[in-house]
């Protein structure tokens, strides 16, 4: 699943090809194959559209116009990319430990509700304090939620994929309970919500843009996660444990705290996504929090090959596709689930492309000499 073997083998066997070229070839595999899979998925979706009598070229044109073609649409794409980045990190971090956690939606939802509750409670305090408290509340809520998934996995051997998804359903039920019960603003009649946040509790736009500061935090989080995995001893330990748990335990690594810690961190990041959705986009917590970002984030993480830096362009791409959804729906008369079908097809093709790794000689400098 991960390309951690590449640098190790570079150390073990002296490179026979020019260093720079070999380095590039090794890195290229993880970019070329997902890109190829992306194109194949788009081609498959074009066939789907043709079968329905719709024009793929119109679809692509609208997708470009709605998601990437203008400053307005790029900002729209970035706006949607922000929660996707957090949600994808929530998948990518545990993936380094060999865990498939897919319940980020639950951490997003609870993070949003916790942030809204604190934002309302501290609404009259200085903005810095309120926002810090909201972010902390969102991160603690999300972190506890996914941290529990990790703890169940390590200490009770409960499958993390199923348990995280169940926890997501429980989180959504909990949110509905809180939003319609204890935390409900009596003035919200048609759509039960928490109390609207005061100005001090809102996150504003980045100067010169319509996109809120959450995007900056999301990008910083990606860099921090990449550094954590690639440059720290905890990241190294996680990669060892992800490769072979027994080997890690024999080496004396504390696998349990590692798993719980990584899961809690990933949940905290997803909780942050919920906090920004509440503080920057919605203005209060309500059922709109469960918008499926957690599930789209799974696709982002797999497309990015669980690499925190790869998450950024992929999230931008899928954010743009989602941003174009409304336009495509209106102009082409397609249902809103069209984007879901496209995402599903991309996901399937990307997973199928996993089988291609290691099959092409051009990506493996060690095999260049032996090539006929």
């Amino acid at each position, binding site marked *: 699943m991960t390309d951690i073997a590449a640098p190790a083998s570079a150390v073990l066997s002296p490179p026979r090809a020019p260093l720079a070229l070999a380095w590039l070839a090794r890195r290229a595999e993880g970019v070329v194959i997902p890109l190829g899979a992306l194109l194949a998925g788009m081609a498959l979706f074009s066939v789907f559209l043709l079968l329905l009598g719709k024009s793929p070229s119109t679809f692509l044109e609208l997708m470009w116009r709605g998601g990437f073609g203008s400053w307005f649409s790029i900002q729209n794409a970035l706006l949607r990319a922000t929660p996707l980045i957090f949600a994808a990190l929530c998948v990518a971090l545990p993936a380094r430990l060999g865990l498939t956690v897919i319940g980020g939606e639950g951490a997003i939802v609870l993070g949003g509700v916790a942030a809204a509750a604190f934002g309302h409670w501290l609404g009259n305090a200085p903005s810095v304090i309120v926002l810090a408290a909201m972010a902390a509340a969102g991160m603690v809520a999300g972190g506890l939620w996914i941290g529990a998934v990790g703890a169940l996995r390590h200490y009770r051997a409960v499958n993390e994929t199923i348990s995280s998804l169940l926890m997501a359903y429980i989180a959504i039920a909990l949110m509905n309970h809180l939003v319609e019960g204890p935390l409900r603003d009596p003035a919200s009649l048609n759509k039960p919500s928490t109390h609207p946040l005061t100005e001090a509790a809102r996150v504003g736009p980045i100067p010169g843009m319509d996109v809120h500061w959450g995007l900056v935090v999301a990008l910083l989080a990606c860099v921090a996660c990449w550094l954590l995995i690639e440059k720290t001893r905890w990241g190294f330990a996680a990669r060892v444990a992800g490769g072979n748990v027994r080997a890690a335990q024999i080496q004396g690594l504390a696998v349990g705290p590692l798993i719980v810690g990584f899961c809690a961190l990933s949940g905290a990041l997803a909780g942050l996504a919920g906090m920004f959705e509440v503080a920057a986009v919605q203005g209060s917590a309500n059922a709109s929090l469960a918008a499926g970002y957690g599930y789209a984030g*799974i696709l982002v993480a797999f497309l990015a090959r669980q690499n925190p830096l790869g998450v950024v362009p992929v999230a931008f791409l899928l954010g743009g596709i989602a941003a174009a959804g409304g336009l495509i729906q209106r102009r082409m008369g397609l249902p809103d689930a069209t984007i879901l079908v496209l995402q599903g097809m991309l996901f399937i093709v990307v997973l199928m492309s996993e089988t291609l790794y290691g099959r092409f000689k051009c990506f493996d400098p060690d095999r260049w000499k032996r090539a006929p």
Partner: protein
Amino acid sequence: MEGDIGLWGVPLAILGGAIRVSTPFIFVSLGETITERSGRINLGLEGTLVFGAMAAYAIAVETGSPWIGVLAAMVAGAGFGLLHGWICSFPKVNDIAVGIALMLFGMGLAFFFGKPYIQPSAPNLPAIPLGDWSSLPQVRAALNVNVLFLVGAALALALWWAFKNTKIGLIVRVVGDSADAARAMGLSPNTVRLFATAAGGALAAIGGAYLSLYYPGSWNERLSSGQGLMAVALVIFARWNPLGCFAAALLFGGAGALGPALQSVGVTQGYYLFYAAPYVLTLIVMIAASSPGRALAGAPGELSITR
């Protein structure tokens, strides 16, 4: 007195609800049992269930026959199963991830093609009134049993017998316990798993057809609330035993009926929390059924989820 049985209505409603709500669990978990016994896990049955619900409803609207709808759902479900089995037959492809992808894909396709069928109403699957001997309407309502529930019960028994006593059952179990042993016997693990996943998909789709054609008996995008996923967890709890699946499905059905049953007697506080009961129960059951350090009793040896 007639019609007023006070709090006794709660257990009665839970019993009736258990029978009504459990049917999709029975079919999905039996389907997943076949797939997992062959050594593969299909987490995508939630998507298959939703697509099956849509396909059954759409075809029932078009043809006027709910049974043709069920058949269409089975064909569609088998198709999803074949797709899963085919993709997983490539080396290095992770069956759990493919399941997640197919779950999202199946739901997307179902919402895509199901949009025009939210409005029209389809003919329902018939139910057998087993409670006619009683004068209490609650008892009669509780024992109004759908045909598919009885089919599911019979199927659980048949599968339990077939795994033990038939050649096909043995082949599926061998492939699930050791691919190498299967190859030594001249069997192709990928082919057996392909058919086992297809059969699992077809059964899961029947569960979906039950949702849209009987209870709740309509098609919309919020029809399923994770039944397909819970059924996968339930198979682990039932230790891959078809009869265990049936019993566990009834238990889960009862948990799912708790919210509506309490609401019917006027308990409205914490309404949403009761709706979380099946998920919480699933989680508790998974925690109780799993244990660190040793393999699960009865688990197929090739199953990725228990290794």
